[in-house]
């Protein structure tokens, strides 16, 4: 029999044991009778020889080796009964634990899904992103850095010794045509090695081969699994058939597996389909637009790979003048994909950890108060032969029971509230990341519950079972266990207040940041403005002239609609994370045109009505007008930031700039106007130097016209205008996929959604912490009042003023609170340093926030103290002195 069977059949085994011993006694008794003893005497002798039947039975049960389990079950049953009879205590403790474990499980489920779970690519830790770095430029600003040019990529691919596979890819927008409802499709273009690098095998057909990259043979397409399902009904015979993208026929060569998307939130999302990327050796080396991914050879370290890439880039820079100033940088894919969300998650993880610690402190406190009433019970058990270890085990079992039930409740809480965490999407949580309560999350939750149970179970268990442990805490020999317990309770309460102080300060700083962010003047008005995003298909609008003509028509129609005040378009709408910049030269200021430190303003293309539609003030000169035609002298408008930077003490109007170096073969362009600064990149980012070109005479070195945002300022009837506008657009071109319309207010809100969400989440956790701490201090003071009832009664009988009693109790709470606040202050200073990147216009040591938070905490704590303190003043001395 295994121990499990022995445990399972213990009832039966007990019976057999009794029978076996009975048989033994009977035989012995009979023998003794045969020797001449009386029956009674024989029985006594036999029992004596055996050494007490009950004791032998006990020892035999011990020999079964299942004793621990039996004890455990017994303790468990006892624990259930104890909790059942104290529903108030049980409910408070369970709720506290459920909140703590629930918050932790929820945050961990996100961490597990993003930071811990490997990417859906083969050996994803060998995968790296490569980006070009520009010397002296803004290398570390954000993810994009910059991509690779065709020839630089091809050279790096040929010359390196460290990559097993290397591939380039870029975005490519298409319109799916030849169907009833033309659909705008997010496509990607990739070189042959792309899917091999990621380790993705198609579910149907094949992926790209080098031959597909030859111009003329590149009209093949790979479908994503989702497009295959939606548009082609998961048809297995789809390979070999033809679809039309921008009216050009493409042959379907394969279908990709589900969940194989490379997604970087805010930079590139899931693609509906892929076409081959055709590269050209003749492309300029300064045109860096390729995203590059590579798989490092086994046995080669990231550092070695980085060295090799840097050497090759340095060699290219010395060979080709237009490759000068570019370096390469390798970043592991996992790090790159989770770079934005990682610090946020770690801060939240820290926050829920603190909440759980406070919860532990609270439950430990509760249990100690609760356990003080159990001294008699434990004394009786000890007298009956229970060892301290045995009693400790029993108390710990009760704690573990609480922790496990609380943990299970917490998991339910997390599962139901987990959807709230999808708000993290705005912080850079990929929409491809599924947050699930899988095995690792449940295992984490279970382990955390057990740990929690031990953590909050140990102090009360030690308090009950031994003066030995407390002996070391005793300051004087006369200190009773009760007083030592009070000291531990005070310590726990102070700790809770300190931890809440940390969380509250963090939440306060984020709140202040958010408020200062809301007070930022973006430089434009979102009120009553709507944005319409156009993606003009190349097949209907093949050149800039036709594209511009389309927008002119749209704007004429829009301007004539009732309820429209102004309408204008821009290529990169502020707060949408789109931006372009280019090198320019300034005619009258050669000192700015050095080879190392030339101006690279943000560049935009606008239509005449744009500044009015966005309520961007015209400071000087004029805005673009319809007279700025392609034949008129080129005109450009700069923002105040540009004017201050380059024309500080002179009139910017009439100055001349050109794109590229001073000797570039591009025309000099007149500055005709100055407009107000706009927070283009983000609300929290200071306005940069910007220039606006006029759309009819696009002087930029590329054509952004296919993708423009139309901004319409209405008199307030957004809905009606939107409908009328879409009708007009449909009338203009019925084949155009219907553009997306979004209120500017939404774009504004989206741009700060991440900060808002992080602030809210941390505030919720801080609130939980404060409530728990308040409950904690309330419990401790209540208990001290109850245990001092007699003393207070005597004081009152001897003539103490009730107000003094109140003051005495309040003082005790205040001392605990102030100690906690001061300790918490130190912790908060450390925590806020971690928060630095999430703050805006608030110092991590902001005195106002810290003072306000400390005050708030003190007020809450004093309220929690006041309730039991008032009860102390109502004590009737006669009753109190008689009470035991």
């Amino acid at each position, binding site marked *: 029999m295994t121990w499990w069977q022995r445990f399972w059949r213990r009832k039966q085994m007990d019976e057999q044991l009794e029978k076996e011993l009975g048989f033994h006694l009977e035989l012995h008794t009979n023998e003794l009778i045969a020797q001449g003893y009386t029956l009674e005497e024989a029985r006594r002798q036999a029992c004596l020889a055996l050494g007490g039947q009950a004791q032998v039975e006990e020892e035999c049960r011990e*020999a079964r080796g299942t004793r621990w389990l039996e004890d455990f079950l017994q303790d468990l049953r006892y624990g259930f009964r104890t909790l059942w009879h104290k529903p108030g205590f049980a409910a408070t403790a369970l709720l506290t634990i459920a909140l703590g474990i629930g918050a932790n499980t929820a945050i961990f489920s996100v961490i597990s899904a993003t930071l811990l779970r490997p990417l859906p690519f083969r050996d994803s830790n060998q995968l790296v992103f490569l980006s070009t770095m520009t010397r002296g430029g803004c290398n570390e600003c954000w993810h994009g850095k910059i991509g690779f040019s065709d020839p630089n990529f091809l050279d790096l691919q040929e010359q390196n010794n460290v990559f097993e596979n290397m591939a380039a890819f870029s975005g490519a927008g298409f319109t799916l045509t030849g169907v009833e409802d033309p659909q705008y499709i997010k496509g990607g273009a990739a070189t042959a090695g792309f899917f091999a690098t990621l380790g993705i095998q198609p579910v149907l057909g094949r992926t790209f081969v080098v031959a597909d990259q030859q111009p003329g043979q590149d009209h093949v397409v790979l479908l994503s699994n989702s497009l295959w399902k939606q548009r082609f009904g998961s048809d297995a015979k789809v390979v070999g058939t033809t679809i039309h993208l921008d009216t050009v026929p493409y042959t379907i060569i394969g279908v990709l597996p589900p969940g194989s998307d490379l997604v970087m939130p805010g930079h590139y999302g899931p693609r509906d389909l892929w076409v081959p990327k055709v590269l050209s050796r003749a492309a300029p080396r300064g045109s860096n637009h390729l995203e590059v991914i590579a798989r490092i050879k086994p046995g080669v370290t990231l550092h070695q790979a980085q060295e090799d890439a840097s050497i090759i880039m340095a060699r290219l820079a010395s060979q080709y003048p237009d490759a000068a100033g570019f370096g390469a940088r390798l970043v592991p894919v996992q790090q790159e994909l989770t770079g934005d969300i990682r610090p946020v998650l770690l801060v939240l993880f820290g926050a829920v950890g603190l909440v759980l610690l406070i919860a532990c402190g609270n439950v430990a406190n509760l249990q100690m108060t609760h356990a003080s009433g159990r001294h008699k019970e434990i004394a009786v058990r000890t007298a009956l032969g229970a060892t301290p270890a045995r009693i400790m085990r029993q108390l710990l079992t009760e704690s573990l029971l609480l922790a496990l039930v609380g943990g299970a409740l917490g998991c339910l809480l997390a599962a139901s509230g987990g959807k709230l965490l999808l708000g993290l999407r705005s912080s850079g949580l990929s929409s491809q990341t599924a947050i699930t309560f899988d095995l690792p999350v449940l295992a984490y939750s279970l382990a955390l519950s057990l740990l929690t149970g031990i953590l909050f179970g140990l102090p009360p268990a030690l308090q009950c079972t031994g003066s030995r442990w407390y002996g070391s805490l005793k300051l004087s020999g006369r200190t009773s266990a009760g007083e030592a317990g009070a000291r531990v309770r005070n310590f726990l309460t102070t700790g809770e207040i300190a931890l809440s102080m940390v969380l509250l300060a963090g939440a306060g700083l984020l709140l202040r940041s958010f408020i200062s962010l809301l007070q930022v003047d973006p430089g434009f008005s979102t009120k009553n403005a709507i944005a319409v995003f156009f993606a003009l298909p190349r097949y209907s609008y093949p050149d800039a002239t036709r594209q511009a003509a389309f927008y002119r028509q749209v704007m004429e129609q829009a301007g004539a609609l009732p309820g429209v005040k102004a309408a204008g378009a821009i290529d990169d709408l502020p707060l949408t994370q789109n931006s372009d910049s280019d090198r320019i030269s300034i005619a009258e200021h050669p000192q700015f045109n050095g080879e190392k430190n030339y101006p690279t303003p943000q560049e935009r293309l606008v239509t005449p009505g744009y500044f009015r539609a966005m309520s961007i003030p015209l400071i000087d000169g004029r805005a673009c007008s319809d007279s700025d035609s392609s034949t008129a002298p080129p005109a450009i408008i700069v923002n105040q930031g540009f004017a201050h930077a380059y024309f500080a003490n002179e009139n910017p109007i009439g100055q001349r700039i050109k794109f590229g170096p001073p000797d570039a073969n591009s025309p000099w362009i007149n500055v005709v106007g100055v407009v107000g600064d706009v927070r283009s990149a983000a609300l929290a980012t200071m306005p940069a130097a910007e220039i606006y070109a006029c759309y009819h005479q696009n002087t930029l070195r590329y054509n952004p016209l296919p993708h423009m945002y139309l901004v319409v300022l209405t008199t307030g009837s957004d809905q009606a205008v939107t409908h009328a506008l879409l009708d007009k657009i449909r009338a203009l071109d019925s084949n155009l996929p219907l553009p997306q319309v979004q209120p500017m207010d939404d774009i504004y809100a989206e741009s700060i959604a991440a900060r808002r969400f992080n602030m809210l989440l941390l505030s919720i956790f801080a609130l939980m912490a404060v409530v728990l701490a308040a409950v904690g201090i309330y419990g401790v003071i209540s208990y001290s009042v109850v245990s001092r009832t007699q003393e207070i009664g005597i004081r009152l009988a001897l003539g103490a003023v009730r107000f003094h009693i109140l003051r005495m109790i309040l003082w005790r709470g205040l001392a605990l609170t102030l100690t906690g606040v001061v300790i918490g202050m130190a912790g908060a200073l450390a925590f806020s340093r971690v928060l630095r990147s999430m703050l805006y216009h608030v110092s991590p040591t902001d005195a106002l926030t810290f003072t306000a938070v400390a005050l708030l905490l003190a007020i809450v704590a004093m309220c929690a103290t006041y309730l039991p303190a008032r009860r102390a003043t109502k004590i009737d001395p006669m009753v109190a002195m008689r009470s035991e």
Partner: protein
Amino acid sequence: MVAPKCDLPQGTLDLLILKVVALGPVHGYAIAQRLQQVSRDVVQVPQGSLYPALHRLENRRLLAAEWLETETGREAKFYRLTPKGRNHLEAEAAGWQRLTEAVSLILAMSEGGAH
């Protein structure tokens, strides 16, 4: 019962039980009696520790037990040796033999023989 009695050295009870059981299936009371008789009452078998020891050996699968009828028609729990128990007994018995021989050799040493 005049002869002086010896307490069993630690761990030898298991060995003795295995040896008795090796002679054939036997119940607890018979084991106690057999031990006492064979050792001519020198070995004091503490009956109180006999049963826990039997159960321990059974759990370690050195002994197997089944309920059988005695000659008098009563049901009793009879223990017998398992193959594993037999191996264990042989190993333990050999070990014990070596130990006692060594101890006797040392005790038989004449005074001064050590020099």
